């Protein structure tokens, strides 16, 4: 019994000593600021900064290769915290961007050309005649954006359109980049009203396939007091940085495309 305690205890002390020595002798020099910056980040590893995960971004920020405000999800708050750690001046805060779905063509208002049966993924559906929606610009509703969102901000509605929770959205733009139809825009988070359509088809064609698509009538353009709306290729586009949320366009839109 005694021999066992002594021998095992002795081994423990010996190895402990070796480990203590090794940790001193072979210690990896880490800038303590890297760890501090990493703690300030959200830790979602979303990749919006362009680096492979939060720890890489932290390293690059400390090394001076990445901008202080590089963490889009963290926004101004994180940028200020990083600036504080690094003893630098926080950059000018830009407006927070959030993802906005730019299509209202759910199954109750938009027509389908055929029944799609296959891999439940928008990119897969795109391979077959550009997807089942009759409108060639419309959201396919198979939820690729919801699956790539690292912050659980996107859920799919029963009618087959993604619902983006603006509070949870950090503006990392992963959904926009994954959408094969490009019906997600990154817009100013303070803007409530937006033309929710991407169709540049002529009015007649839009009417044939969707009840709520923009027909390019231009009524909103004429009525906007801020001149924030322009018409391009039969499609009204609101500049979310000029819009002051007066809501006039929502009232006048004959197709309820602006919400």
């Amino acid at each position: 019994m005694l021999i066992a305690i002594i021998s095992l205890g002795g081994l423990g002390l010996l190895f402990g000593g070796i480990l203590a020595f090794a940790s001193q002798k072979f210690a990896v020099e880490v800038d303590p600021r890297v760890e501090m910056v990493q703690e300030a980040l959200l830790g979602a590893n979303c990749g919006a900064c362009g680096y492979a995960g939060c720890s890489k971004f932290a390293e690059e920020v400390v090394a001076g290769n990445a901008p202080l405000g590089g963490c889009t999800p963290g926004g101004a708050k994180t940028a200020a915290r990083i600036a504080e750690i690094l003893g630098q001046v926080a950059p000018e805060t830009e407006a927070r961007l959030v993802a906005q779905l730019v299509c209202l063509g759910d199954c109750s208002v938009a027509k389908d050309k055929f029944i799609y049966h296959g891999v439940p993924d928008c990119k897969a559906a795109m391979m077959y005649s550009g997807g089942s929606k009759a409108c060639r610009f419309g959201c396919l509703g198979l939820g690729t954006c919801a699956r790539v969102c690292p912050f659980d901000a996107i859920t799919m509605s029963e009618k087959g359109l993604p619902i983006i929770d603006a509070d949870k959205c950090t503006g990392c733009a992963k959904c926009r980049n994954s959408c094969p139809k490009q019906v997600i825009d990154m817009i100013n988070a303070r803007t409530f009203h937006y033309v929710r359509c991407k169709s540049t088809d002529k009015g007649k064609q839009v009417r044939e396939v969707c009840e709520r698509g923009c027909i390019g009538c231009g009524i909103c353009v004429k009525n906007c007091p801020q001149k924030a709306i322009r018409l391009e290729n039969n499609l009204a586009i609101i500049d979310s940085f000029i819009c002051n949320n007066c809501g006039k366009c929502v009232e006048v839109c004959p197709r309820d495309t602006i919400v």
Partner: protein
Amino acid sequence: MSFKTFKGGIHPGYFKSATEGKPTVPARPPSLVVIPMAQHIGAPCEPLVAAGDEVKMGQKIGDSKGFVSAPVHSSVSGKVVKIDSCNHPLGRPVQAVYIESDGQDTWHGDVQPRPDYEKLTAEEIKKIIREAGIVGMGGATFPTHVKLSPPPEKKIEYVLVNAAECEPYLTADHRAMLERPEDIVTGLRLVMKAVNAPRGFIGIEDNKPDAILAMTKAVAGDSSIVVATLHTKYPQGAEKQLIKVCTGREVPSGGLPMDVGCVVQNVGTCIAISDAVRFGKPLIERIVTITGSGIMEPKNMLVRVGTMITEVVEQCGGFRPNIRKLILGGPMMGLAQPGPDLPVIKGTSGILCLTDAEVELDEIRPCVKCAKCVDVCPVSIMPLFIGGSVEHGMYDKAEEFNAMDCIECGCCTYICPAKRPLVQWIRMAKGDIAARRRK
């Protein structure tokens, strides 16, 4: 010869009885043809005519400077109405020439028979084939003259006529062999001459004994051509599998048939080559099988390229009301279409109309790792792992599992008890891998 066979493959129901006994009938000359500028793999053609121009039958109306490309010709004589986009079997709208027929079908002056065609040199034959706009008519629409122009270091020893017609439902090649066997043999001889190949094979599945008989008769004891009876199994008519069975050679991964000294041509292509060389006729019509239980009268028809599918269907008595799915080509590798509003192109081997009873829309379930897909895969890849990788977005993993070797025959999807769309996943992987390799 002994009937060696390839690994894997399936035995689906063949459903050929509806049309295999029916002679090919010429379709009514169309009043309007829509001729897409892209009817082949490769660079699309530029239109050579403008709205208002008068064109003759067989006149070249589109061409491209790209090597991997084939010109297109007018299939009627008449007036160009407009140049606009049209629906295409591949799903994306393409530019097309709309021609209104004058009902006269006057041939263009360039279409002249060549009575002394046997004296033509290899180069001349290749040039005629290119100018006639001939592409692989089995469905892949690869320009034929490209296949016949291997780099000089690659010696072609065998020319194979793919007469397996392993796709269920389709009987266009079968009818062609019964009705024009001599032309097929002429086409084969011309190809052999063009690539200077000493030997030819005509591979026919053993479920078409009458075709084997007709072809053997047409070959008439020519010892350089062998009519090979093949085991009836899908995909017997896949290029690489046909080569393996007939010659015992295996096309390497990522390689082409010319790497093992082979050239494969479809039955329809051989007839088109014979017509082009002997009579100067460009490729403007083809045999199409219109079949499936969703059509009133299944038929084999000789249809002009550019005829609208709606018009062809109308001549077969129209759709049955319970039609559920329209496929251009066979059920295994054909392309499902959103509607009949598109033209017949050079690669349209069949118009397949399936009803509720034939279309099964089952829920996609998790893989049970039964490996049936591995057993049936003719190119020895593991579809279950590629499908699983793509399902989770791991395209690099799919590349490691050799997704690029897939021939998209559809055996794995056919056999899968969990109804997993394996081919679609593999196609996604192939698209992604090809895009990354281009970078």
